[in-house]
Structure formats: structure tokens, C-alpha cells
């Protein structure tokens, strides 16, 4: 082999994401982190006030608009962004797009955080949350209610399969933390991995069910949802929007992290994700436009009113975002790719937000605009998710990186920060040892 070929090969290898590595060398607590933390604490305090005063004094909700942004944005929109564990997972495990495994831990983490914060806010939004204990007895469920499906299915999903899928990075950290913990950790891992096919399958079935049921929620509202959005296909369209939005969230966040913490981007993986996203967007847009066309609602899109405006806004955002992703595959431009992810996800967010709020017309006089406290609580719970994310990527091996990044991290903690004991990695491990299970046996 010529030396030139070797050179190219080595260069490619430098950028290939081969190992999830914690973000090191950046302090966890900085100004941004403190601002987020303040927002979280403020939201908790305001939540206490909400539980005493009721929903009216803290929110803009009223008889006509029974649902506010806590449900319609934090749950309906943000769990769509947090469907990465579902969409990326299915692409990687069921359709065996192997490269996407590099993004899997990011997908699982963002999903867990989005669902956890959404579910907390769902509990706060409920007027009589103490009655949630009814959920434990299945004979009390109304099996045909889309909302029962959402509430039950979402809680089970976030608490069981999604939580279990997120355990490996934690176990891995324990494994590295202290060599005395290793036999125990390996035992738990073996048990966990034995159950993984069942866990992962549940982690695909449940979100498929509740993300579509979120769309089915608004079916019962009938004609109060504008004809551009009200369609029997609403469950399918909601699920479809969740798939491309979550790809945008996972890949876009990973790209942002790479920029922020100066890491290499693996364009092979990102191209693969962008290609899948572009296909998903094309399919979704096709279904959306055909549905509008065949129901005869297309004419309402050419009236000069806010509904037509919202429709074109979301359609053009998603279409242009998808187009940018497609173009970025040709010229390998991370910039176009990132902008494409952002635009298509924002378009998807508007779509998921519309049937409940922007295109919901309970009566001509009705108005809804979130109150200050409502917005602050909503922001606080989003901040909670971001705080969780920052802690996780800086303390656990979540973000994908080239192999040399792992070795750099080992050197960093070994020689530059030997006094950081609580960081965990390499505390008692023998640096440079062969960690493979074969070496341990011999």
C-alpha cells in the first residue's frame, strides 16, 4: 500500500466516531449553567404557588382554551423532539443503519430528559393530580381514550424501557470508577443485556403508540380544529413529524456540542442521519400535502388569514430544511446540514403546536396567550432538561468522539488534573491496561 493511501486512511480514522467520551476540560458550573439553575429553582417555587392558587391565577388558560403551553408545548412539541430513542433507534436496530449507533446514547439521553421534564409538567398541569393513583389499577382505565393511552403509555415508557436503556453509561462509569465494583457491575450488565431485546422492542412500540395518540387527541375536538389540520391522518402525521424532528434534535444537538466543545465531526455518520431525515421529511410532506389536497382543504390555504399563514410557515420551513439537508449531502457542508436540521425541526414544532393552539378555534371571541408565570414554569422545566443534559455529557460517556479523544481524556485526568478524584474515570483503573474481557480472564 502506498504511503499516500495510508495517509488518507489515517486522516479518515481521526474523524471517525468510535467511542463515546465524556466532555472534559470544561467546567460544569459556569454562568450559563447558573442561569439555567436559577430558572429551575424559580419554576419549582412558582409550581408550589400554582398548586395552592389553582390554574387560573398562574396561566392564561380559560374555558375556551382548556389547554395551555404546559401541555401543548412542553408535552406535545418537546416529546416529539425527544423521540430520538424511537426514531434513531428504529433506524439503527430494525433497519440496521449501523453508523447511527454512534448517536444512540445522545438519542437515549435527550429522549429521557424530554420525557421526564414533560411528564413532570403534565403532573403539574393536572388539576387534581392526587387522583393519578388510579393509573395503577388497569380496570379503571378508559381503554378507548387517547388521553388515557398517552398518560399511561408515556409514564410506563419513560420509567421502564427508556430508563433502562439509559443505564449502560452509568454502569460504565461505575466500572471505571473503582476496580472493586467491576464484578458487580458486569453481573448487572449481563442481566440487563439479556433482557435488552424485550426492553428495546417495548421502547419502540410504546412511543409509536403514544406519539400517534397525541395526534388522536385532537380528533375528538372535531371541527374546532381548522380543516387544514383536522384529518383522520392526524395520528400518522404526528408520529411522522416526531420521527424527523427527533433526528433533527439528536443530530443537531450533537453537531452543536461538537462546535461548542471543539470535537471532530464524523461526516459519515452525520450524512447517514441527514439522508434518513431527508427521506422522512419527503415522505411526511408528501402525505401532508396529499391529505390536504384530497380532503379539499387546499383552498383554505389560499385565504388571507392567520391559519393559511401558519400552514405555509410550517410547510415551507420543513420543506426548505429538508432541501438544505439534501443539498448538504452533496457538498458535505456541516453548516447547511445544521441549519437544515434547525429549520425542519422548527417547522415540525409549529405543526405539532398548531392543532391544539394556533389552529384551534373554540369560538370566534376566544383568546389564549400564556401568562408570565406559565411561561416561566415552562422555561424552567426546559432548563431542567438542559441542566440534566450538561451534567450527563460532562460526567458520562454520551457524546461520540474519535478514539484519540478517549486517550486524550485519560492523559488529561492522569497528568493535568490528578487532584480531580470525583471525576471518576481512571481513579483506580490501571492506565493503559488492556480492558477487554479476554485480558481480564487470563
Amino acid at each position: 500500500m502506498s504511503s499516500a493511501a495510508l495517509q488518507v486512511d489515517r486522516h479518515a480514522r481521526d474523524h471517525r466516531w468510535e467511542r463515546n467520551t465524556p466532555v472534559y476540560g470544561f467546567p460544569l458550573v459556569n454562568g450559563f449553567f447558573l442561569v439555567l439553575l436559577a430558572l429551575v429553582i424559580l419554576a419549582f417555587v412558582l409550581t408550589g404557588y400554582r398548586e395552592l392558587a389553582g390554574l387560573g391565577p398562574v396561566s392564561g388558560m380559560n374555558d375556551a382554551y382548556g389547554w395551555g403551553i404546559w401541555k401543548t408545548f412542553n408535552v406535545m412539541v418537546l416529546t416529539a423532539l425527544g423521540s430520538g430513542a424511537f426514531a434513531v433507534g428504529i433506524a439503527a436496530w430494525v433497519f440496521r443503519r449501523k453508523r447511527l449507533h454512534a448517536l444512540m446514547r445522545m438519542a437515549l439521553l435527550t429522549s429521557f430528559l424530554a420525557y421526564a421534564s414533560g411528564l413532570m409538567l403534565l403532573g403539574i398541569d393536572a388539576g387534581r393530580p392526587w387522583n393519578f393513583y388510579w393509573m395503577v389499577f388497569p380496570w379503571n382505565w378508559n381503554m378507548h381514550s387517547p388521553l388515557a393511552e398517552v398518560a399511561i403509555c408515556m409514564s410506563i415508557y419513560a420509567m421502564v424501557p427508556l430508563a433502562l436503556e439509559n443505564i449502560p453509561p452509568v454502569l460504565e462509569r461505575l466500572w471505571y470508577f473503582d476496580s472493586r465494583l467491576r464484578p458487580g457491575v458486569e453481573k448487572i450488565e449481563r442481566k440487563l443485556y439479556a433482557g435488552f431485546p424485550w426492553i428495546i422492542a417495548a421502547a419502540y412500540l410504546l412511543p409509536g403508540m403514544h406519539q400517534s395518540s397525541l395526534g388522536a387527541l385532537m380528533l375528538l375536538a372535531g371541527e374546532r380544529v381548522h380543516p387544514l389540520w383536522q384529518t383522520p391522518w392526524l395520528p400518522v402525521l404526528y408520529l411522522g413529524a416526531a420521527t424527523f424532528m427527533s433526528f433533527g434534535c439528536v443530530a443537531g444537538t450533537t453537531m452543536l456540542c461538537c462546535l461548542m466543545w471543539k470535537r471532530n465531526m464524523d461526516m459519515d455518520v452525520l450524512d447517514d442521519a441527514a439522508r434518513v431525515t431527508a427521506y422522512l421529511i419527503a415522505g411526511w410532506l408528501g402525505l401532508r400535502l396529499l391529505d390536504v389536497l384530497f380532503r379539499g382543504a387546499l383552498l383554505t390555504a389560499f385565504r388571507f388569514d392567520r391559519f393559511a399563514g401558519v400552514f405555509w410557515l410550517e410547510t415551507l420551513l420543513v420543506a426548505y430544511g429538508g432541501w438544505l439537508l439534501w443539498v448538504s449531502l452533496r457538498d458535505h457542508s456541516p453548516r447547511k446540514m445544521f441549519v437544515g436540521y434547525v429549520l425542519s425541526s422548527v417547522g415540525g414544532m409549529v405543526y405539532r403546536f398548531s392543532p391544539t393552539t394556533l389552529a384551534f378555534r373554540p369560538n370566534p371571541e376566544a383568546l389564549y396567550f400564556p401568562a408570565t408565570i406559565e411561561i416561566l414554569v415552562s422555561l424552567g422545566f426546559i432548563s431542567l432538561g438542559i441542566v440534566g443534559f450538561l451534567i450527563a455529557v460532562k460526567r458520562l460517556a454520551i457524546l461520540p468522539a474519535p478514539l484519540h479523544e478517549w486517550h486524550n481524556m485519560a492523559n488529561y485526568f492522569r497528568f493535568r488534573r490528578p487532584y480531580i478524584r470525583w471525576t471518576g474515570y481512571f481513579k483506580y483503573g490501571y492506565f493503559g491496561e488492556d480492558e477487554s474481557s479476554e485480558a481480564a480472564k487470563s
Partner: protein
Amino acid sequence: MAITRRELITGVAKVGVPAAVVGSIGAGALKSETIPVPSAAVGLLYDATKCIGCKACVAACAEANDTPPDTRGDSLHQAPSDLNDVTRNVIKLYKPENGSEFSFVKRQCMHCLDPACAAGCPFQALHKDPESGIVSWTAEKCIGCRYCTITCPYHIPRFQWVGFNPRVTKCELCQHRLAKGLKPGCTSVCPTGAVIFGPRPVLLLEAKRRIETSPGRYYQNRVYGEVDNGGTQSLYLSHVAFEKLGLPELGPESVPAKTLRWQKRFYQYFALPAVLYVGLVQVIRKGLRAHEQEAHEHEKETGLRAQL
């Protein structure tokens, strides 16, 4: 290696064939489903041509249900502008600007034969009594999700926005009075007999008799609620269009039957999700084995512990 075409086709066939079988059986079961009329369905008949708008029924309703008078309008008169958290029954006036015919309208729960509020209620807090057909609310089951305020096509259930222990307020046809052998509050005071109480078939006959005796008096010569939205137990007669009185034209099929058809089919006996789940486990098991193998090889190559 991404999934091959052959695998995709066989995979779809493996999951799809049993799913199609289950689906077609479920579809058969669904077609035979009709809305059962409660055995002793009671209801109200409101005749807008007889109503003089005295609002005695509004006061009687508040008294019968022990709700405080709603004086939030001017801190003086009990004058609720619409149904709300203390108002289960309200009289409204439709009076067009152009001077054509005006009409009062009494709004309260329609007690639909297939109520959308109960279809959407996650834990059966809103429940239709199988005998009397009265749709009532149970505080101990309600989580306060307010889905009923979104789903009801007549916009009847109202949520209490203030306070730590909010309630959902709607007309329950004075169940407590019926148990004592009394009529609902509103019907017991109406001076002109504009609203009467009785078994639904009797009310329906009475309404049709009125239409027959004075043809042309009533809008479209029909009773609203006989078939509308799958049939309701509160029936309306009016001389102006029902839509003007806030009674939308929903067609003879009920809202839940129209919209949740596929939802019901998919979750019938939980059969389809179960088939999908088993199929997914098989596919993932195969992929997981290959993935573990690869991770193991990578571990040997790099000397670093495999990350799954």
C-alpha cells in the same frame, strides 16, 4: 449493512399477515357495534318558542345544586354570561342585528347517547349511567386534565380555574332530586312549560306531536337530538336555525364514532400491538447479536472496554 430488500419483505410479511388477520376480525367486531340507548333514558325537552327568558330555571338550578350565585358580572345580580364553574344551566338570547326573529335558548348538558366527554375521559370520571343515561362526574376519579372541555361538541363541562381542589361542573339532571322522586330544578319552576322532564321516548313523541299540530312553526320540522350526534337525551325544538342557538349540525353519527374508529380498531383487545411487539423482539434480537459480536471485536482491536 443496512437491511436488505429480502429481509424487509419477509419481515413485513411475518408481522403484517397476522396483523391483517387480527385487524379484519377486529373490523368485523366493530361494524356490529351500535350505540345502545339506556333502558330508562330520561331527558329534557326544551321548546324555544315557549321560552320567555325569565331565567327562573337558572336560579332554580343554582338552588337545587347548592351552587353559589354567580355575581361576578357586576357584583350585584346573578347574571352569568355563559356556563361556568358555578353555573350548570344558563338562558341565552339570540337576537340578530337585522331585526329578524329572535329566540332564547337554554343551555345545559345534552346527555348524549354516545358522549364525547366520557369517550375521552382517561379514568372514567365522566360516566354515562347505563340505566338513566345521565352523564355525571365523579370527583374521586378526575385528574383535572380538562380533556372534556376540549372534546364536548357543545362545550358544556367547565373547569374551576381558581383553588387547589378544582371541580368540573356540568348538568347532572339533578340526580339527587330524581332519587327523591322530584323533578330536576329547572323543569319544576318553568312558568310556560318551555322545558319539561320525562323519559326520552315520551319526550320524543311529545315533540313530534307539537310539530304535527303546528306544521311550519318549527325549524326544519325536526327535533334536535333525535339523531344528531348519535342522539341526545336533551331534545330541542326551535323556530330559528339550531346553529344560531349554539347547537352545531354534527350529523347522525356521534363524534367518538366518527373520529375514534381507527383508534378503537388498533387497540381492540390489544391484539395488534401484541403482534407488533413479538415481531419487533425477533428483529432486535437478531440485530443485537450481531452488534454485540462487533463490539467485542472492536474491544479486542482497541483494548478499550466495549460500549454497548
